[in-house]
């Protein structure tokens, strides 16, 4: 079927987290969808491919339930019940780092719009999420998964978008979705530029194991070199996102296993016992990029192809999930009344819906990172006071938690309570 068919409603270029989610959401909305991925699905789920884990906000997790992804994640999901934001104590010669005294605490039961029993969010390792998305895609109706084959060209005619594949096939659709991340072929074909900048920081990612259970608490310390996040995973494990100045990060990556573990312990603290590092470590240069437009006639950008934000708030994949939900909503409404899925009149609704959210998130993560990635005494004092104040005002804290849970604004159907 997938080998002979050439015409679809929607072709998604890129079969990563955002691309597969967008494809599943569009197929769920009743559109005929192809998702094209250059990589072999087997490579995408290998332990060595991507060591990151992603936070999925509670509203976004509802979509994963509806799309049949949550059921395929099985026990590989860790609930985040509490988020503790701390102005972290930097390790010095005398004592270890760890949570500092001023803190901001978000609890799941404080968020009124959350349904009974919903946590603030869920932590899932990216490779587990990929496996679940691939399994859901394999079983989904109206969805062809074409991989591994590269997209060589994307072009737009008044009536259709064309996608040329490396194996010589040519596909056509009313709409092409760019979901290939930073090197988006679709974005180039749209002639859309990106604006943004690089941070002088690198994100080091590793998985830790601790003797003591973490109790579903996510920690974020703000250390002078950048945020240090401990995100709970199943089985006493945690995903560590350690933001470090680029040069220091290079040195940390070069350490042997014992020295690296010692550096992690110095920052992590010992409140969960003596932590160990499990498996390999990865490093990712950090930057902020936003596409100047998310849409063009017969084309739309989702996920990292549309924008990449600082991982400080754990929002990267969440933005991609919201893109998928909003796109599916807009396309379902268009199809319902017979409008062209690739028409600018339809796509402008997607852009209006998603671009403000993206810019707000990009700005917020940037400001937070700048505010917290330094150790100047007055700045440190001011932010401690600000965090303590927010923590004292239940309304402000709940608003923050709802933002972290992605539950604000006009919710697409896929994100509404189940």
């Amino acid at each position, binding site marked *: 079927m997938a080998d002979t068919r050439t015409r679809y409603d929607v072709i998604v270029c890129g079969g990563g987290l955002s691309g597969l989610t967008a494809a599943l959401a569009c197929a769920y909305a009743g559109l005929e969808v192809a998702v094209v991925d250059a990589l072999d699905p087997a490579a995408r789920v290998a332990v060595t491919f991507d060591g990151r884990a992603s936070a999925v906000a509670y509203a976004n997790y509802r979509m994963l339930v509806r799309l049949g992804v949550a059921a395929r994640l099985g026990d590989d999901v860790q609930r985040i019940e509490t988020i503790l934001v701390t102005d972290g104590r930097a390790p010095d010669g005398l004592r270890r780092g760890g949570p500092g005294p001023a803190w901001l605490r978000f609890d799941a039961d404080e968020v009124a719009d959350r349904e009974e029993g919903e946590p603030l969010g869920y932590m899932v390792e990216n490779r587990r999420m990929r496996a679940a998305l691939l399994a859901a895609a394999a079983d989904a109706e109206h969805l062809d998964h074409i991989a591994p084959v590269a997209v060589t060209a994307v072009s737009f005619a008044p009536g259709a978008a064309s996608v040329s594949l490396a194996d010589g096939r040519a596909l056509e659709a009313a709409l092409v979705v760019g979901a290939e991340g930073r090197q988006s072929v679709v974005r180039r074909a749209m002639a859309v530029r990106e604006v943004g900048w690089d941070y002088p920081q690198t994100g080091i990612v590793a998985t830790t194991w601790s003797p003591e259970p973490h109790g579903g608490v996510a920690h974020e310390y703000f250390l002078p070199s950048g945020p240090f996040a401990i995100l709970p995973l199943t089985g006493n494990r945690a995903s560590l996102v350690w933001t470090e100045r680029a040069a220091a990060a290079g040195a940390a990556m070069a350490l042997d296993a014992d020295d690296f573990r010692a550096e992690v312990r110095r920052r992590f603290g010992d409140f969960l016992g003596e932590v160990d590092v499990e498996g390999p470590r990865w490093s990712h240069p950090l930057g902020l990029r936003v596409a100047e437009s998310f849409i063009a006639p017969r084309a739309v950008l989702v996920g990292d192809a549309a924008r990449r934000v600082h991982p400080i708030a754990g929002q990267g994949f969440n933005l991609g999930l919201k893109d998928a939900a909003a796109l599916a909503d807009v396309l379902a409404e268009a199809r319902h009344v*017979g409008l062209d899925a690739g028409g*600018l009149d339809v796509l402008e609704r997607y852009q209006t819906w998603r671009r403000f959210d993206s810019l707000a998130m990009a700005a917020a993560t940037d400001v937070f990172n700048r505010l917290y990635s330094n150790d100047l005494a007055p700045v440190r004092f001011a932010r401690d006071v600000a965090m303590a104040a927010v923590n004292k005002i239940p309304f402000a804290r709940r608003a923050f938690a709802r933002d972290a849970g992605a539950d604000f604004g006009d919710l697409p159907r896929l994100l509404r309570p189940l």
Partner: protein
Amino acid sequence: MAEALSEIRHLESPTVDPGEIERFSKIAADWWNPRGKFRPLHKFNPVRLKFIRDVVTVKKGLDANARRPFAGLRLLDIGCGGGLLSEPMARLGAKVVGVDAAERNIKTAKVHAAENRLDIDYRWGAAEVLLDSGEARFDIILNMEVVEHVADVEMFLRACAGLLAPGGVMIVATINRTSKAFALAIVGAERVLRWLPVGTHRYDKLVKPGEARAPLAAEGLDVEGPFGVAYNPLADAWSLSNDSAVNYMLTATRPLSGPAPTS
């Protein structure tokens, strides 16, 4: 046979002169640019399309969840312009005949439909001409934003009614003749917001719901409405409303049994 002929015309005419196709393709791009001069129509389109789908689905007892609920139904789009309604109707499955008095609009609509591989029978003409030519009756007639531009409202609406098959549904959309409509639809839309060229609408040509209802009822149709349509400036979107003082729609249904259509 007539259908076969019109299909041939539709398929062949755009290939007659490549220069002309290019010219009309550019005009079509204008019509279909939601940021261009037809922006108000694009903004207005979703609410009226949804109304059409809902009304026809209920009146004709169609499957509300079908992908192509109008499959097999003959639909007439009067004053089709560049095809902003005809194309969605074709995607919903209808066999669409689009009629417009401006030849340029018909050529534009044909080129755009061909580009989008939609089979729509566009004709340069008018409702009265169709009726006189003995055209087969239609299951759905869209009469949207036309009555306020015709020379004789009563004659025009009676001709449209004559084209409606038993059990068929006509939807009329227009602008009321009220002081509010003058303030918003003429002064506001044309002179303040510049949504429409000055002179698009003339106050004395606007039509009160009763004036549209009377000729349709006289032709034996069951008329319902008016259903108001209002613009929400904060959302920059149109929605159905209880206020029919400016934009409104009527539905007119021909009973399955009753007086035969005049022809």
